[in-house]
């Protein structure tokens, strides 16, 4: 097999595995801060119970994010040695600042946040929780800045084939960065919203709910109902930005082969790269132009305008539909769920079983949408690693295919096991009674009282 494709597949597998966990921990950190704050304010036990349970999920998620992140810091060198040699002067500082400003902040204060209760003041504990949440978000800032720069490179000059920064201000405000950052942070929040709602719904279904279940469900559904429409708006702005800077990606997302005015919106099609046309296409006439450029007659550039410089069409086309489809389902579920929950007087037991089952099934829907979205943007950048300037094939490693394939199989097996274990453990923890441990009694009230007395 082609070593470059193998190297890409291996890197993509690692990236895909890694992003699952930060996607949860970025927003879950802030959610924990909210739970803790509500508990400090109201002294309602339910908030503390929620904090304790979701802290465990956070610890698990964070650990998986850390270990898979370490893998990536090595794979830049093992898989793409030419990448840093070419654009290292720009990518280096951005990655360096991530480690220096974010990694240590979150990793150092995580210990105090998880285990520091009773050893430090309530105030320092709250600050630690805040710093962990802040660290995850700063991390997202630097990484998305670098990724966006690779999509829409500015503020540099090339001397002897090596990139040098000319303006860090331009690099830090590169054209696609604000949209991508907002899109990802909202995606993270939605992933957590559906995880909160889904796990709570599961607890109701299994009859293992506790004082916090109804509250957490309400928080999850509310965040979902508010943020899905916002995400659609941000996604649309992001799309307009991509049309301006990366027209080939848009052409692949919509499988438009020839430049045309009034392009249709394809609901389904089978893009065929050999015949360079779509088979079995079902579309809404002119709706494509309307959505992409906000005009019925707007001209959309086709893939044939980018010979040898456009991404593989089918993966981008289908990923985009998976992302949008999941988003629409999230909108319907979020709104229906919140509306019904309110009508039933915020009593989770009174919710219809099919809704609870749907919410449970959608616990990890955020992962699906987020991964699909990343596939659109990253595969959509191909065949370049830095859009329009550096080709992926030129920076790839010379490691023999057999070596890549065998380590790839090893990583893949490990990742599958870990994802299964992660989901199983979250499910297992959700089904256990709210509090356990030798020194903590079984009821939430007693736990809260004990914890309150300690602080």
């Amino acid at each position, binding site marked *: 097999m082609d070593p470059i494709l193998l190297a890409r597949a291996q890197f993509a597998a690692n990236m895909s595995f890694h992003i699952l966990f930060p996607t949860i921990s970025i927003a879950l950190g802030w959610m924990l801060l909210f739970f803790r704050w509500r508990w400090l304010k109201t002294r309602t036990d339910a908030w503390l119970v929620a904090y304790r349970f979701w*802290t*465990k999920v956070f*610890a*698990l998620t*964070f*650990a*998986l994010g*850390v*270990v898979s*992140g*370490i*893998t990536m*810091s*090595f794979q*830049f*060198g*093992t898989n793409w*040695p030419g990448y*840093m*040699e070419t654009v*290292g*002067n*720009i990518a*280096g*500082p951005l990655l*360096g*600042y991530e*480690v*220096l*400003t974010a*990694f*240590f*902040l979150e*990793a*150092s*204060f*995580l*210990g*105090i*946040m*998880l*285990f*520091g*209760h*009773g050893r430090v003041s309530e105030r320092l504990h709250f600050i630690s929780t805040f710093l962990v949440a802040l660290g995850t978000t700063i991390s997202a800032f630097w990484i998305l800045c670098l990724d966006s720069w690779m999509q829409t490179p500015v503020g540099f000059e090339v001397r002897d084939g090596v990139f040098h*920064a000319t303006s*860090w201000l331009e690099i830090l405000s590169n054209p696609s960065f604000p949209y991508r950052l907002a899109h990802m942070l909202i995606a993270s929040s939605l992933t957590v919203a559906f995880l909160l709602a889904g796990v709570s719904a599961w607890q109701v279904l299994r009859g293992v709910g506790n004082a916090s279940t109804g509250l957490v469900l309400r928080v999850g559904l509310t965040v979902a109902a508010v943020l899905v429409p916002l995400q659609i708006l941000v996604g649309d702005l992001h799309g307009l930005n991509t049309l301006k800077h990366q027209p080939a990606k848009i052409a692949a997302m919509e499988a438009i082969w020839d430049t045309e005015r009034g392009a249709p919106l394809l609901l389904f099609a089978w893009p065929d790269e050999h015949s360079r046309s779509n088979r079995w296409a079902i579309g809404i006439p002119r709706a494509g132009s309307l959505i992409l450029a906000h005009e019925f007659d707007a001209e959309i550039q086709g893939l044939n305008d980018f010979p040898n410089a456009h991404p593989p069409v089918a993966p981008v086309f289908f990923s985009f539909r998976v992302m949008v489809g999941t988003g629409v389902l999230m909108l319907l579920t979020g709104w229906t769920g919140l509306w019904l929950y309110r009508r039933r007087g915020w009593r989770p037991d009174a919710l219809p079983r099919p809704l609870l089952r749907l919410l449970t099934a959608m616990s990890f829907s955020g992962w699906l949408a987020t991964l699909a979205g990343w596939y659109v943007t990253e595969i959509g950048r191909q065949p370049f690693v830095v859009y329009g300037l550096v080709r992926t094939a030129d920076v790839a*490693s010379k*490691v023999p295919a057999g*070596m890549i394939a065998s*380590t790839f199989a*090893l*990583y893949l097996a*490990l990742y599958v096991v*870990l994802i299964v*274990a992660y989901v*199983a453990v979250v499910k*297992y923890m959700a089904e256990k009674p709210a509090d356990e*441990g030798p020194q903590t009694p079984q009821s939430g009230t007693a736990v809260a009282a004990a*914890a309150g007395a300690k602080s």
Partner: protein
Amino acid sequence: MSFDEWLPVIFMGVMGLAMLTYVVLDGYDLGVGLLMPRATEAQKDTMISTIGPFWDANETWLVLGVGILLIAFPKAHGLVLTALYLPVALMLVGLILRGVAFDFRVKAQAAHKPMWNRAFFIGSGLAAASQGWMLGHYVTGLSAGWQYQLFAAAIALALPAAYVLLGACWLILKTEDELQRRAVQWAKRAWVPVVIGMGLISLITPWVSPTVRDRWFSMPAFIALFPIPLMTVTALVAARALLNSHRVLGKLCWLPFALVVTVFMLGFFGLAYSLYPFVVMDRLTLWQAASSPDALKIILVGVAISVPAIAAYTVLAYRVFSGKARALTYA
């Protein structure tokens, strides 16, 4: 030298310090992981609670070290990691197993706990042995040939022993009673292979590399450098003697750990002296491998501001969890 020429030297120093910090801090974590199968179920939980609040941050030093290699010396990063492709992959698998097992073992069903304990041990062992393998290859300039493979294999056994010694000394510091007494026994047993391993590196590196030989065995350098091996031997002997004393269970419980850390530091400085100014022995100097001075200056600003801050909150975390380890509970 101009400031621009100093920059790579500064980054080499920061990278070296990050790696040393990593080896010491994650070294005791990995050592504790390697000792797990020798402990009872209750002792396992105590052992985990001695490293629980720290291991995440400890591992981050590796990201900083490799990160600086990546961003300050991109050519060396590509060269080293391509040559060490397989051990790197194995180490990563080990670190992943170790890290996740740490969390899974207390959260999964009780019936699965032994499985995650095993994963914790295997992960720690795989990571430690791969790091030893990489160290062995790295100090001989990534050369190919059976004798180098054999040397790397020897270090792949010696480094885990060094981690076990460090981990056992950490447990002497952080635990009490039966577990502490056991840790003393573990430390004694790990001491011998550590001494052999350090002796092997000290003899073989100058033998395979004329550069290293000239560095160490020419006059007057030999006399000036003599304190390094002398202090190393003294620290090792003192640590071994101390393990026989009952005072190690009481007031002096911190001393074996301090002595072993001193040995690690001396070994590191010896290695740094052998290597400088090469990033890859006899093949690539740090100036040949460095990024542009402009990029290094930008990163240096961040390093100058954040590394002191990192040091400060590392100290804070260790102070919050100082003293003998208590059971960990989520807040």
